[in-house]
């Protein structure tokens, strides 16, 4: 549905997006994860034909981004929730949606039905005639999402839709995205909220100007941080720690109460040796498991490595 190849954007000497190649499947929720200034918004703007690309290729549903004739077709099939909601504050919720529905060429009957459905679904129908200026941040964000959906787009770009929302409003927005996921829309979600990406997205790309990694949350957790052995002892002591450090000099051993985390290569193959070392040093093992790094650890490792 969305394909890019070496997509690059430069502003003078500054490279905002550097050679990004990715593929997003139809019906997929694709998370674009990265710190502030990583190029997430610039990427979305390029894909939405809002700004030009400096080099590389991008295609949305087969249409070429950057080709003037294709740009209008692309904009007809996408919906955008920008990082700033950008509502017409003096106009009512209904008017805000109606203007956009008209710009997408929806008939009056379609508009009435779609707007009612969307506002009802988002719990805003009772406020349809109220000026957007009086809405809370969460309500404004919901209205911005409704606006992006008013023409029933195949692809939805969302640029940090839960940023600056209180936890309750953020949850409402996330739940709504989960509902959209069930409708098999393709959703491209910019976020720097790792938990959100982990919960909502089928696949995630980590961007820091360059694309650092792409995969499912589970793949990413394994990809960089790798796996580690977690040993739960009845009591940790210096003898056990000393034995592990001398026998596995390449490993990083951390202690949290009676729990030891041993970060080393090929942990699954080395569990027997680790258990042997602990037992010989007088340690009593309650459990031993191989655990993956968290998405947060993966993300931080990748971003710090690049910086």
């Amino acid at each position, binding site marked *: 549905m969305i394909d890019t190849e070496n997509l690059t954007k430069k*502003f003078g000497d500054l490279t905002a997006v550097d050679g990004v190649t990715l593929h997003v499947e139809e019906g997929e929720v694709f998370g674009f994860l990265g710190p502030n200034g990583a190029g997430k918004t610039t990427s979305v703007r390029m894909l*939405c034909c809002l700004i030009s690309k400096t080099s590389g290729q991008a295609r949305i549903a087969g249409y070429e981004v950057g080709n003037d004739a294709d740009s209008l077709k692309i904009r007809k099939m996408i919906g955008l929730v*920008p990082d700033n909601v950008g509502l017409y504050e003096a*106009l009512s919720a209904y008017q805000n949606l109606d203007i*956009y529905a008209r710009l997408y060429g929806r008939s009056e009957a379609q508009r009435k039905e779609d707007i009612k459905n969307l506002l009802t679904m988002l719990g805003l129908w009772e406020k349809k005639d109220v000026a957007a200026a009086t809405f809370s941040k969460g309500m404004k964000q919901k209205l911005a999402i409704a606006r992006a959906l008013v023409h029933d787009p195949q692809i939805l770009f969302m640029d940090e839709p839960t940023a600056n929302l209180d936890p309750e409003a953020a949850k409402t927005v996330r739940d709504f995205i989960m509902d959209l996921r069930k409708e098999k829309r393709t959703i491209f979600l910019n976020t720097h909220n790792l938990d959100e990406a982990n919960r909502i997205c089928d696949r995630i790309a980590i961007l820091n100007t360059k694309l650092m990694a792409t995969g499912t949350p589970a793949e990413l957790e394994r990809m960089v941080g790798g796996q580690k052995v977690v040993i739960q002892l009845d009591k940790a002591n210096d003898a056990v720690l000393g034995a592990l450090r001398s026998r596995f000099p390449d490993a990083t051993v951390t202690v949290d109460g009676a729990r030891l985390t041993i970060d080393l290569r090929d942990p699954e193959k080395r569990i027997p040796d680790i258990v042997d070392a602990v037992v010989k040093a007088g340690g009593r093992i309650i459990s031993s498991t191989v655990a993956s790094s968290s998405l947060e650890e993966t993300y931080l490792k990748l971003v710090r490595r690049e910086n």
Partner: protein
Amino acid sequence: MRLSQALIVASKDFATFTKKKNIIYTVFVIPLLVSFLLPAVTWYTSQRSKGLAATPADLVTLLPAFSFFFLILAGIIPAYIASYSIVGEKVEKSLEPLLATPTTDSEILLGKGVAAFVPPFGAILVGSIIFMGLTDFVTQAKLGYYFFPNWTTATLLFLMVPLAELMCVEWNVIVSSRVSDVRIAQQVGALMVIPFVGIYLSGELRFIDLGVVNNLLYIAGALAVLDAVLFYLARAAFDREEILTKWK
């Protein structure tokens, strides 16, 4: 370019303006005030005691000059709407979602132009009709004929006022792309009135006879050239990439 898309953008702006009392007052009240005030001044000057009262010859000089007030208004009033229309969207950050719709930059610009052009033109037209009717009413006895309408006023209202308004709108698009405060945009945008005050003063100081239609056509030609230059600059300023990456 699709006019339908531009008209939807314009209708959005119209809907917004109806909620803004300051815009309504500026657009409609000022032309109405002028349309009543100028005939009142005319009536007063022709009713003063003998020796001080305006003669028919004075009135024939005074009335074309008065009608030029509507040209000056055409250089001011659209500034309020155009700057609000563009800087207002900048402040509300509503241009990005609008640009993401299947609407071209030119259609958005045209829509904003229509929204800034039509209400002032309507208000100026209504104001000038009231002005001409009342002026004829108070001067007919002294002049012995109805001074308005005439070709000078027709040229002024249907050629120069639209060109002046267009110039004002284009200038305000350029100004709006450089500032992010509606009031500053309106103040800088209103500087467009200066050339029209200059035209009025040139008439008063007898550099140009503004009662001669040919002279007005020459001025209109110059305005049309300036309009074309400003259109080019405004179109360059209203480019989606510029708007999203360089507008402050």
